[in-house]
């Protein structure tokens, strides 16, 4: 099951660990630089908003169980700050990584559409899936987002 290699010395292992670390560092630096340089904000936003139109009819028609619930707005605001604000900005007005959620495309979208986007992400454009948050928590975020429309 295991094989003994006489040549495998601690110094060699440290060297290989260093190489592993350097490779990891190159990936971190390389991808972050590539992402920083290639982020064409306008094209990115357009694609992200276009993803709203891809929500299936069945998903769009889902009703928000927390509609008009002030507690859900508060809870959704807390969740937004914890999970979304880094990319979309603390006031949801957009940041370098994520588009504004105050724009008409988002604010006029049906709650079911927003839940679908949260659940499925826009993986190709950098938005991860958020189905790891339970569905009630995703609805709370949707409730919070739609409350911004009236502020």
């Amino acid at each position, binding site marked *: *099951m*295991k*094989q*003994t*290699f006489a040549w*495998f010395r*601690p110094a060699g*292992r*440290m060297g*290989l*660990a260093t190489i*592993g*670390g350097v*490779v*990891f560092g190159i*990936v*971190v*630096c390389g*991808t*972050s*630089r590539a*992402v*920083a*340089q290639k*982020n064409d904000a306008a094209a990115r936003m357009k694609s992200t908003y276009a993803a709203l139109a891809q929500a299936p009819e069945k998903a769009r028609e889902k009703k928000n169980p927390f509609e008009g619930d002030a*507690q859900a707005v*508060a*809870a*959704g605001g*807390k*969740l937004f700050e*914890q*999970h979304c*604000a*880094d990319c979309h900005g603390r006031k949801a007005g957009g940041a*370098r*990584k994520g588009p504004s959620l105050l724009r008409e495309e988002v604010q006029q979208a049906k709650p079911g559409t927003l839940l679908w986007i949260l*659940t*499925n*992400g*826009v*993986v*190709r*454009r*950098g*938005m*991860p*899936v958020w*189905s*790891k*948050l*339970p*569905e*009630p*928590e995703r609805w*709370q975020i949707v409730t919070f987002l739609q409350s911004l429309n009236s502020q």
Partner: protein
Amino acid sequence: MVARVFPTSIPRKSTALIALIFSLLSYHSSLAQESPYIVTYNHYLEEPGSLEVEYFSTFGTQRGGNDFHAFWAEFEYGATAWWTTELYLDGQTTFHDSTVFTGFRVENRFRLLQREHLVNPVLYIEYEQISGADKILKEVEGHDVESDFADSNSALRKEHQHELELKLLLSSTFKGWNVAVNPIATKNLSPSEPWEFAYATGVSRPLALKASPNRCNFCLENFVAGVEMYGGLGDTQSAGLHDTSHYLAPVVAWNLPSDWTVRLSSGFGLNDNSHRLLLRWGISRELSGFGEMVGRLFGGRP
């Protein structure tokens, strides 16, 4: 005129290093909703540009030898929304023996489908360069059994594992429940070694599905509990469950609003080939936007 003491490149490098250290110390992190699994993987990847720094410990009992405390650090980086890359550094202390560095692992996970489905597959590829003294038991494979770890560190370190590990991470989340199943195949890159097989599987659920409106440390929504089971399935020369070890481990994660996650697991050996107890704990912190920060320090767009 004052003579220049240092070449210009040294202060620049020092400034960049100091800036990096200060940036990390004062870094804004974001609350992660981490799964409680320590061995099993679900299909959720690291958020793009985020670095999760993790430390884990495993205390293991050892019949016919000395108990041990194995530990590892993980640096998990979300390269994109569909690709996460990770570096592990492993070590262990065997009581009444010694403390040794046991090797490193580089791992990549690739999300195969763009959207959520009933079952979500993720491809996992790992290269590991570890010694036989590695006891973190992050995977239990092939015919791995407790007696493999009974020798002294000096003897175990002579063994060398130079392996490629492949996993298919299958995971599904429904009504708050996550079910994850990981079939595993491992090949020691020495030609004479067989493929080894293993499994890891887990079920978990947050203790509350709705968030409370206020920030709180002890809200039920901050806790995710579950159970995982893992073990070996033999190898291509001798498939089956004989001479394999298996574990059942209740697990819990506590996602703190202060951006830290704490995980606990007590794994119980299910047969005579298994360690009786593998007590594990881990602590992690996610640094969101880490990639952008590094990119800016090294000349990326501000």
